[in-house]
């Protein structure tokens, strides 16, 4: 069974762009949230969610199943994808 994958990203962030491109190359499906595009409660709730996965609240934060990859790190993404 494939894992649920979410990427919390910023629309202007190059590491986020590269990470998304890499996930595309891996042929996996994922949900992408551009946190800088959110406002009000949605922004607040999303930041809280990111904080739970990654206390530094940095981007990209990639959640792959039970694993969290902070930053664009191909090796860690590969490992988490399994």
């Amino acid at each position, binding site marked *: 069974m494939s894992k649920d994958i979410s990427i919390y990203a*910023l629309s*202007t*962030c*190059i*590491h*986020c*762009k*590269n990470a998304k491109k890499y996930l595309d190359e891996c042929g996996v499906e994922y949900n992408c949230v551009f*946190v*800088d595009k959110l406002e009000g409660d949605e*922004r*607040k709730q999303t*930041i809280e969610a990111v*904080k739970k996965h990654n*206390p*530094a*609240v*940095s*981007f990209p934060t990639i959640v792959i199943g039970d694993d969290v990859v*902070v*930053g*664009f*790190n191909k090796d860690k993404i590969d490992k988490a994808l399994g």
Partner: protein
Amino acid sequence: MDAKQLYEQLKKFQESKGYYFNDDMEMTMALMESLLENKKRFGYMACPCRLANGDYENDKDILCPCVYREEDVKEYGACFCGLYVSKEWNEGKIEKQVVPERRPPDKIIF
């Protein structure tokens, strides 16, 4: 101003201070575009790789070049975004790794 003009404008001054643009031009020019995008959005060039608060006073630390650049380039050879690097980093003498976030998370206001 377009991305190329911004690049030329910053390059001379920053290089004189010992900070070089990442020689991966695809990446560097994309970051130039993002800086101009943030200038349009916020009125100032907030770091494209960080979540800006949207008001100048609360984003002072992440105005590019951010206050964390010095420590990051010293320790990792590159800033958090990977826009500014040391000469040695561009020359491949320093291992290219993910630079961890140094900005305290409580700087994000919500």
